[in-house]
């Protein structure tokens, strides 16, 4: 019998294959190209971030990866299954935290988990055995029988996360998981997501919070107008695209100060940009800027290391996106 042999052969590449692989994905609505030739791959056990301003194509990309929207062109492989062809099978091992909470308001916290488990074909017994773990994970043990209307925004979000884990998924899609939450609630979600990564889960996260991406993502892609503009680890992206130090000058007079620099601006910093009432000085040598600011006692300023937000702004611009 060669059955054991076959198992060995098929097991190895399955482990090595990415959890999600997207190639040349495109989708247009009429003349508008929402996703325009996007490719990326997420190795198993890592967290991948899709960053982009509103309308960049993040949610459409996620919906195509789940098999909910037919791609215009390109290929998607989700946990070894071609999507959308075999999406229903692929979703058995996937969890989803959607952007908009859609917890079932007709049920209690526990009932939500039990009912959702059935959509995965789990028996009532299997579902009931899993509930205590999920309630503990979401810090909702005391809310087991609570009606959804009585939960805070943070609790609803945690319940949505718990619901996404009901099937013990290999890959979890998180579409802006902390939008609208207060700092305490965000930190709790982040802590739980790190726990999932420690347990070997793969995460796909969309966000426009740069601190969130910086904390959680191993790799990320910045996308705008449906195209990938940059990809790498948060550290690599900052190192590759931005001067290491930033001096922000803000408040009344910041703009006048920048105008007053004239030709000297190029000597003080490699790039100086104004956005609203704030002037950003990107530099390798902040001492020069700081010395000049020392002569302007009325100006308020802050020196900080460059971060992912600077990269994001550099690539996607400062104009408002609605």
């Amino acid at each position, binding site marked *: 019998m060669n059955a054991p042999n076959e198992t060995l052969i098929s097991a190895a590449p399955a482990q090595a294959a990415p959890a999600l692989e997207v190639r040349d994905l495109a989708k247009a*609505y009429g003349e508008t190209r929402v996703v325009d030739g996007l490719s990326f791959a997420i190795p198993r056990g890592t967290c991948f971030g899709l960053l982009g301003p509103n309308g960049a194509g993040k949610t459409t990309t996620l919906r195509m990866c*789940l098999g*909910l*929207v*037919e791609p215009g062109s390109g290929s998607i492989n989700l946990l070894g299954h071609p999507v959308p062809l075999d999406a*229903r*099978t692929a*979703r*058995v091992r*996937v969890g*989803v935290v*959607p952007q*908009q909470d*859609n*917890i*079932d*308001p*007709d*049920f209690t916290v526990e*009932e939500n988990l039990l*009912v*959702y488990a*059935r*959509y*995965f*074909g789990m028996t009532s017994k299997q579902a009931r055995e899993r509930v205590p773990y999920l309630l503990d994970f979401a810090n909702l043990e005391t809310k087991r029988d609570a009606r959804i209307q009585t939960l805070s925004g943070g609790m609803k979000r945690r319940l949505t996360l718990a*619901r996404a884990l009901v*099937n013990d998924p290999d890959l979890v899609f998180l579409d802006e998981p902390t939008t609208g939450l207060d700092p305490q609630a965000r930190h709790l979600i982040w802590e739980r997501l790190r726990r999932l990564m420690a347990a070997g889960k793969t995460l796909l996260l969309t966000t426009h919070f740069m601190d969130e991406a910086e904390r959680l993502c191993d790799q990320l892609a910045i996308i705008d107008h449906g195209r990938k503009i940059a990809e790498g680890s948060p550290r690599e992206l900052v190192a590759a695209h931005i001067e290491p130090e930033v001096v922000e000058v803000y408040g009344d007079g910041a703009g006048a100060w920048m105008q007053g620099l004239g030709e000297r601006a190029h000597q003080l910093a490699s790039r100086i940009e104004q956005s609203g009432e704030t002037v950003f000085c990107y530099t390798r040598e902040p001492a020069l800027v700081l010395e000049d600011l020392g002569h302007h006692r009325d100006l308020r300023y802050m020196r900080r290391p460059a971060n992912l937000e600077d990269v994001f702004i550099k690539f996607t611009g400062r104009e408002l996106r609605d």
Partner: protein
Amino acid sequence: MHYDFSFPAFSPRFIPVWRRNFLVWKKLAGSSILGNIADPMISLMAFGYGLGSLLPSVDGVPYIQFLAAGTVCMSTMNAATFEALYSAFSRMHVQRTWDGIMNAPVALEDVVLGELTWAASKSFLSGLAIMIVVWIMGLAGGPRSVLVLGVVVLIGLAFSAIGLVVNALARAYDTFTYYFTLVVTPMAFVSGVFFPVTQLPWWLHAISQALPLSHAVALARPLMFGQWPEQPLLHVAVLLFYTVVAAYIAIVLTRRRLLS
């Protein structure tokens, strides 16, 4: 807009969708059943005895007995329609429950089939409740009157499917008011619920022959009196035709609405 006409790939996963609705209903079952039968019973009594006392027999039976079959059919239609419009719309559009379900390995056609069978199940309870009262009042007789329950199933399926088409097109709850006042209520008047279709002018009679409720009433009324309908297969086929075609249209339209 893009339409996906591919054949629905149903799976047994429509059952958890049905069960979800059943669980919610179970919590409020008492008031739900009462509400379902109180209204049709009141109109059956009022029209049947009140108006009936002024009328000679209709089609050879007392008016209330004539009206009983129509009332069963009409209230089954109303119950299925209401569930497939207002309740399904809440779940689809307002609560976004369908979106949540479709993130699990449940396809859109499973959700629509789950809602269709649920609305039909709920309307079956309405039809059954009224039939029980009708039997107790002695307005239906003979073992064949049990077959009216089969007609109730067909009515529930057909009007749930048609309701889900309207649901897929609705922008807001207002749409449903139009559907009830312009389609459902007029249909009851020309389908032989309140008076024999032979009383209609010829052109209205012709239209009536194309409507699913006429075929339901044509099946239910003789069965209620323990007789065989004249063309049972035709009537059953028409109701099934409405179910299948409307379900397919509902799936195509709901795909366009939710999956693009």
